[in-house]
């Protein structure tokens, strides 16, 4: 009885903390906290898409940084070279990414498990190599400078608080969209798919089509996030769009809990907050400064060991029930 109350309290507290966190940077007028929030938000948008792919469609992707990069580079090139304004550039970029995802996603339908992982890993590397090598288009390692801040018509998001609100809005929209998808009929079809593809197809679910749709959707979310990133930092280079970031995304999704819509957001938050926390502690305590990678790795392992179904499952686990969150197995 007390445990269930505790669990409910934790859930309520979680929501309260969430809203508090969201509001704090604005209340404190802290550009630093808002910047942290912006990066969490941008990462979360990608993570939510990836979580959808992994938790519901049961597909793993080790190359999602590529779609993030495609969004960033499209926005960068279209706004700096062709003078397009940010919103149409983002739409065009997302369309381009979606088409590429469609092309890349089709072969993945035949692959499973580790083969799928390898395929996504490979195209992630290939796309990053193209960013690096296609210098006439992407300016290679020098990167593209002077990307304007995001704007919708006369509304310019050129200060940190405005950019923060923009990212929050897009994140909210993404979560809303994904939530609706998950609870709708196609969404239920997806969940059935994840449990057993054979059973799902017997029930009339068009398995390949459903998987492809989810794949493309997750790529679209990543692309949108990438565009936001480009407009916020005003600079893109191939470096952030590689395997390292794909792995970070994976960690965010799994640690947060792939089977829920909020899980990846929690994962993104934990990841960034932990890394910043270790940095700041490292400034004060020299020992932490030299060992922060080690500590980060240890915390990661600990979280995974103690919260096997992700952070978001914590309230349910305290209640002692079988977690509703899906197992995000490959």
């Amino acid at each position: 009885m007390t445990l269930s109350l505790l669990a409910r309290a934790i859930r309520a507290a979680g929501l309260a903390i969430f809203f508090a966190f969201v509001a704090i940077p604005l209340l404190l007028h802290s550009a630093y906290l808002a910047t942290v929030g912006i990066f969490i938000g941008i990462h979360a948008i990608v993570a939510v898409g990836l979580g959808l792919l992994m938790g519901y469609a049961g597909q793993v992707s080790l190359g999602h940084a590529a779609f993030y990069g495609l969004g960033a580079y499209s926005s960068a090139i279209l706004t700096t070279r062709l003078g397009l304004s940010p919103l149409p550039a983002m739409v065009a970029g997302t369309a381009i990414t979606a088409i590429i995802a469609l092309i890349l996603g089709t072969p993945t339908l035949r692959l499973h498990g580790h083969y799928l992982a390898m395929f996504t890993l490979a195209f992630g590397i290939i796309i990053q190599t193209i960013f690096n090598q296609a210098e006439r288009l992407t300016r290679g390692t020098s990167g593209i400078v002077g990307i304007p801040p995001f704007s919708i018509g006369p509304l310019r998001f050129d200060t940190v608080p405005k950019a923060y609100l923009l990212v929050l809005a897009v994140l909210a929209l993404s979560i809303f969209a994904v939530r609706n998808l998950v609870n709708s009929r196609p969404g239920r079809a997806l969940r059935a798919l994840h449990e057993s593809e054979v059973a799902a197809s017997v029930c009339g679910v068009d398995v390949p089509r459903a998987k492809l749709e989810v794949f493309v959707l997750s790529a679209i979310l990543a692309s949108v996030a990438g565009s936001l990133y480009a407009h916020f930092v005003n600079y893109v280079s191939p470096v952030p769009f590689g395997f390292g970031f794909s792995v970070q995304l994976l960690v965010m999704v799994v640690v947060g809990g792939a089977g829920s819509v909020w899980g990846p957001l929690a994962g993104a938050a934990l990841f960034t907050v932990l890394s910043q926390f270790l940095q700041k502690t490292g400034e004060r305590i020299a020992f932490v400064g030299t060992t922060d990678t080690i500590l980060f790795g240890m915390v990661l392992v600990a979280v995974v060991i103690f919260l096997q179904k992700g952070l978001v499952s914590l309230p349910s686990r305290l209640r002692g029930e079988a977690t509703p969150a899906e197992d995000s197995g490959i």
Partner: protein
Amino acid sequence: MTLADQLLQYLITGFSVGIVYGLVGLGITIVFNATGIINFAQGEFVMLGGMAAAALAANGAPLWLAVILAVAATTLVALAMERLTIYQLRGASVITLIIATIGASLVLQGGAKLLWGPDAVTFPPFSGDTPIRIGGGGIAPQRLWVMGLATLSVVAVQLFFRFTLTGKAIRACAINRRAARLSGISADRMVRLSFAVSAALAALGGTVLTPVTLMQYAQGTHYTLTGFLASVLGGLGNGLGAVLGGVTIGMIESFSSGFISSGYSKAIALVVALIVLWWRPQGLLGRRQLQ
């Protein structure tokens, strides 16, 4: 340099680089067969072997001792890692285990940087630096050691799995864990053993490589990645396939670097690998899986 000379050189380079990918892939396969997961810290075992040997050599240990101690130390580290991560997560999902290995790889990287600094290290090659002339080019004698030891390891591992009781026991666990346990095989012990063997393999590779490729604390990731690609290309679960996959990737990289573009060589190798997987989804030597 004549065209024939060039071709020969690309062949040699491709093989010597590829066999290393294959060796790491083999290690990944061994752990995969026993646990069903991809050990993302496999590359770190290579790195640790090389850097520990370099540190020991710099402290005055004779080379043969440095190599043996480095391999032993890395194996111990792998066992500790297994105990603290994999063992704790018995029954967890595959992806969770993989994340745990990622966490472990971070710890190992951080530890290496702490102990040995951010720069690349090296130590003297086993039999000197004088290149062996072949055609219009040449090969470093240490590379011959790499190729030789890698090939020997592959053969030894194959023999181990096919003909020894322990080897067969590990394979039994991979095929059907429950049945294996019912036959009296301790799955946990087999997992530990597989970690130990794959770590020793990786560390040995790392020590032989370091005199020619140097070793830096962050280099593990590269080995993990290529090892994973090699093992999937070869057919996940098939050790010989992993080696074949590795050599294939190495060859394609080498030849495309020589004839097409060095910048795109890695991407080209990957595209070819993807095409192979498209045509043959179970990998080069894998068996077609029943749906």
